[in-house]
């Protein structure tokens, strides 16, 4: 084995073992910053020793044993240090003492809920969303700060700082390393799901020319979601989120054309949808529903995605069901953007006039004033109703609002098309 080979093998072991290692250590030392340092120390030891000794039979156990020794050393050193400083409170010392004694036994415990604790702690709401994202990718995805920085298009020191500060905040605010119970759980879980979906969407928004690591975020988020679904199988929204991500990811191969421009859902070649992911998504949605506790926002969005996934052609889409699902989504998380989506579904199910009526009703909503999708949809529906002059004006308004160059070109082209068709129908209408 060459040095490069063994480094790659160590990387692979690290990716598999790091989350469990950090989680197990964090439970014992009660601080994820220290736990990560200890885990990193054991990685350094592996990098020093494995290239010559070979990767051990059970690399996970080796890393854990090494980290364990470091943990005990750290505690002993701290204890000696503290003993010299008589000012240190007796109680803390006793607690630490006990910790050092228990450490060996504690680390041999089965992993149990450790990973779950790690997920909840990394996604704790005391941290800003971007800090939660960075910490989650670092601790659970085993990504380096450089990889995270490239994925989010920010300089590496920014991410490194973000992670250091996040760990400091967690220890300053004495965030306990635990899985929340009772009434806390729902809010904390939604924070975890939000972060996973945020990571997914960051990857989904990446374009073909981007660094490979960006689209890789989708896989990373899916992996986290799948892990969470195994660790917290009784939470319907976990399965709902997994279902949503699986089905959205199933379209990855169909949503971009050869020259990099986006292909809209209804125009996609459905033969390129990944049937394995669709099947997994539908199964996850079934698991969510089987828990019989109703559908939350992720499950409902997954159900909408499932309507598209089940339709063999765009024409077979069950738009009436989608209208109902958007209605259900509005009931649990009202938003003008969801209203607009429902209006599109209404137009597909009941004709452009019915859809337009809903869109017009939204036109005054302050939240949608700068949202190019609104005039874009309006233009589309007006064009279908052959009201080309109004449609042209709507497309021009949309083109002026969008920041995406490709989209602007498309909207301008549609405006021009309406102008042509308007002059073509003019003689008749007079």
């Amino acid at each position, binding site marked *: 084995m060459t040095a490069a080979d063994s480094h*790659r*093998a160590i*990387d692979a072991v690290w*990716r598999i073992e790091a989350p469990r290692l950090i989680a197990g250590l964090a439970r014992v030392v009660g601080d994820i910053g220290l736990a990560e340092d200890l885990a990193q120390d054991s990685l350094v030891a592996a990098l020093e020793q494995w290239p010559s000794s070979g990767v051990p039979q059970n690399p996970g156990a080796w890393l854990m044993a090494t980290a364990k020794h470091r943990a005990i050393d750290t505690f002993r050193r701290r204890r000696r240090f503290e003993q010299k400083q008589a000012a240190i409170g007796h109680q803390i010392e006793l607690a630490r003492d006990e910790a050092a004694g228990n450490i060996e036994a504690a680390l041999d415990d089965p992993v149990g809920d450790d990973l779950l604790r790690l997920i909840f702690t990394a996604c704790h709401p005391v941290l800003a969303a971007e800090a939660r994202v960075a910490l989650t990718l670092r601790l659970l995805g085993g990504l380096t700060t450089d990889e995270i920085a490239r994925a989010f298009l920010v300089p590496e020191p920014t991410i490194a700082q973000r992670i250091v500060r996040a760990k400091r905040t967690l220890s300053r605010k004495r965030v306990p390393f635990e899985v929340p119970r009772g009434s806390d759980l729902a809010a904390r879980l939604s924070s975890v799901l939000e972060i996973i979906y945020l990571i997914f969407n960051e990857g989904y928004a990446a374009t073909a020319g981007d660094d490979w690591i960006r689209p890789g975020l989708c896989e990373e988020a899916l992996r*986290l979601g799948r892990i969470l679904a*195994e660790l917290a199988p009784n939470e319907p929204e976990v399965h709902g989120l997994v279902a949503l991500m699986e089905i959205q990811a199933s379209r*990855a191969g169909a949503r971009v054309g*050869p020259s990099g421009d986006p292909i809209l859902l209804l125009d996609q070649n459905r033969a390129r949808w990944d049937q*394995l992911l669709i099947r997994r998504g539908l199964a996850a949605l079934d698991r969510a529903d089987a828990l019989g506790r109703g559908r939350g926002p992720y499950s409902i969005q997954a159900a909408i995605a499932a309507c598209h996934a089940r339709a063999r052609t765009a024409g077979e889409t069950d738009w009436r069901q989608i209208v109902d699902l958007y209605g259900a989504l509005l009931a649990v998380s009202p938003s003008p953007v969801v209203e607009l989506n429902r209006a599109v579904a209404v137009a597909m199910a009941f004709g452009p006039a019915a859809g337009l009526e809903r869109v017009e009703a939204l036109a005054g909503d302050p939240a949608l004033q700068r949202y190019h999708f609104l005039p874009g949809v309006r233009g589309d529906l007006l064009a279908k109703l052959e009201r080309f002059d109004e449609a042209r004006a709507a497309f021009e308004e949309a083109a002026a609002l969008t920041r995406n160059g490709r989209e602007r070109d498309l909207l301008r082209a549609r405006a021009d098309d309406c102008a042509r068709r308007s002059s073509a129908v003019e003689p008749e209408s007079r």
Partner: protein
Amino acid sequence: MRFMVIVKADKRSEAGELPDQKLLADMGKYNEELAKAGVLLAAEGLQPSSKGARVRFSGSKRTVIDGPFTETKELIAGFWLMQVKSRDEVIEWVKRCPNPFPGTESEIEIRQVFEAPDFGDELTPELQEAEKRVAAKMAENAKR
């Protein structure tokens, strides 16, 4: 990256022998570990080839050949589909798999699965252009 991890058949799997309790339990544990790590996409065990068939293609002719098939080493007894970040990662996972045929030597084969972007990247506009040129050239040659 997606990999298919293939367990090759042996005499026992071809005879329809099921793994013993211990192996079943170990495999179950291993599968659970894969699922908990978020890498397991699918896993299936295959019935012996005596229950299968082959369709041989020769020009426009199709001939059905019933199993069993004799070249045991070429046959497969089961597979996993795993989603991982690198070839090294899948190798690391496979090394942790319980020995599928204790007492004898066997192999598990690891193959990367083509995914849509694999083709997408290859089929750049330039390449498509090149393809058209080749097609045009062939059409031209055909006229001669």
